[in-house]
């Protein structure tokens, strides 16, 4: 076993896949000699050479489009968005071209687009976004969002091996904050489409993913200690396709659901999850499905503002207390 950070785990996963499969290559801005803005690909050029670690112009549409073409021809591109906020520049390529390729034209497009997401870092409106909802509405894409070091590694490897295009969303607040003991020499492959029970409880369920998994676990600990409320915490890990079975199972177990996400409320993934619970487990509910999310505003820069806009541990505790008493 060795202690690795979330970032190091992601790095290891990328590295192992590049060692294993010479069809895998990386392209993106400053990913080569510089090793990426967050150093995810540091040392990759030295090991794999400039033909497999390609520094590109500032052209997200071209990065994703070129990845698509290469994927059609049998390569396995991993495209980095320097910050995920810039994925909007490749929105057309991803939604119109990449996502539809298999269905409309029988084209195989096994590519990964990955990049740092999320707030809690004083990054302001253009270096803090969570873009999952913008792509959730796009049949043809898969979306994964690891919260643990193990899944950071296991999901990048599974994403690279998947036959379809995958958005791999990684949280920059977790990069160096999360450390975990991972076995050395063992292949870690987190299956796409499977959620994970991160904590077991019986009084209510928190369904979440990404950075808010950690805030939810913190809240669950507090609820257990101070209120005697035990919480099931479900880490979704994959957002598209959603793991309906795991969602329904936790609802049936606790009968009360709090959905927590860092993305803004309206049109956020919590709405979709609530609808599915309604359809598949309505009669098991003993309370309203509730949401703790960011407020519906662009993410502001000042610490006081960002802290208020984004969901915090205390918000989750308060909401869970209310729901537990319902």
């Amino acid at each position: 076993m060795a202690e690795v950070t979330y970032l190091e785990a992601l790095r290891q996963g990328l590295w192992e896949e590049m060692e294993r499969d010479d069809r895998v290559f990386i392209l993106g801005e400053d990913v080569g000699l510089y090793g990426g803005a967050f150093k995810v690909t540091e040392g990759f050029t030295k090991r794999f050479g400039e033909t497999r670690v390609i520094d590109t112009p500032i052209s997200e549409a071209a990065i994703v489009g070129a990845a698509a073409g290469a994927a059609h021809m049998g390569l396995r591109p991993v495209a980095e968005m320097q910050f995920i906020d810039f994925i909007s520049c490749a929105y057309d390529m991803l939604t119109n071209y990449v996502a539809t390729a298999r269905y409309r034209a029988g084209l195989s497009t096994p590519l990964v687009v990955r990049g740092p997401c999320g707030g809690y870092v004083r990054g302001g409106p253009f270096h803090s976004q969570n873009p999952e909802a913008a792509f959730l509405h796009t049949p043809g894409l898969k979306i994964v969002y690891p919260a643990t070091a193990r899944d950071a590694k296991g999901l990048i490897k599974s994403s690279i091996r998947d036959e379809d295009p995958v958005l791999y969303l990684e949280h920059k607040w977790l990069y160096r904050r999360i450390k975990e003991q991972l076995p050395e020499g063992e292949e870690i492959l987190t299956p796409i489409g499977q959620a994970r029970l991160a904590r077991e409880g019986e009084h209510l369920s928190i369904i979440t993913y990404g950075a808010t998994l950690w805030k939810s676990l913190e809240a669950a600990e507090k609820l257990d200690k101070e209120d005697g409320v035990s919480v099931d915490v479900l880490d979704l890990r994959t957002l598209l396709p959603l793991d309906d079975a795991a969602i329904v199972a936790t609802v049936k177990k606790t009968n009360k659901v709090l959905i927590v996400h860092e993305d803004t409320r309206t049109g956020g993934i919590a709405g979709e999850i609530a609808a599915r619970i309604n359809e598949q487990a309505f009669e098991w509910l003993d309370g309203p499905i509730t949401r703790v999310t960011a407020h519906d505003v662009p993410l502001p820069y000042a610490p006081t503002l960002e802290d208020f806009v984004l969901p915090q541990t205390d918000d989750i505790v308060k909401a869970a207390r209310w729901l537990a008493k319902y």
Partner: protein
Amino acid sequence: MALPATRPTAAVPSGAALSADQLLEIYYYLRLTRTLEERLVALYRQTKVIGGLFRSLGQEGESVASAYALERGRNKDVLSPLIRNLGSMLVMGAQPIEILRQYMAKADSPTRGRELNVHFNDLEKGYLGQISHLGDMIPVMAGIALTFKLRREPRVGLVYIGDGGTSTGTFHEGLNFAAVQRLPLVVIGEYNHWAYSTPPERQFAVKDLAEKAKGYGIPAVSVDGNDVFAVYEATKFAAERARRGKGVHFIEVKTYRRKGHAEHDDQHYVPKDVLDLWSKSNDPIDRYSQRVLAADLVSESDLKDIDDRVRMEVDQATDACMNEPLPDAESALPGVYVNPPAADKLWFKSL
């Protein structure tokens, strides 16, 4: 290898002449830009700056000179600066205290703590802040120039784009749109040799950015970006041409980014000798000072007085805002729309 741009200034007959007062005013803005940034570095090291800090060291000349060539004042020309165009904003009337408050996310900052650094506007004074997505301001500034054209106002828009930014789709779409519409727009292409860590040869296959502009059927020149006079004259010519209804003009300014992408970046990828060369023999402020002094246009004591004045102004601005509060948490909610006036405060905040 990147070397200082020493080629002579492109011949651009502007007929522009600068008075001694104007020469001193330009010096004031050059010095103010540098001193203010140095103050920001000190504040950054004291962790008073909330996010990243971006320097324009070595690029102050082109920022100040290009903005200075515009018509300034209430509702005159409008420019859109990038992260390394602090100088252009100061020329257009942005106040040092506004910059300091922005970086420290103060409640009284122009964006009330919502946006970072130089991302703010004053359209009456004539500047429109960028967003982080490079290239986006080209079409937006085309729209501002379109308005001048439709209203038959003798006003001009000016927009900056970095060498890396010219790789974006919006740069090309915006430039083509502006060219087709013959809009009164000046585009300053800043060839500063680095897009984060990416050198020009990995960014584009042309030698000069000006070559790109020519593909859209607009005139383009390439000038020494660390020569304040060259940039001023080229911009003056382009702006007056645009004002006469002759359309878009592209000016490439060759310069050098002498700091990392942001303060955290130690720019280890930049050859030290090249950096030294630009720093020692091609600093835009040094060159400007030497030239105005050598031509006996101003005196050394004039420049010294400005240095002192700038230091005092930056000290005063810092003292005035340093201990100001951050914005109230709930001030995050208003202003997404006119109506409704505020976003909902979410239910769990009231528990």
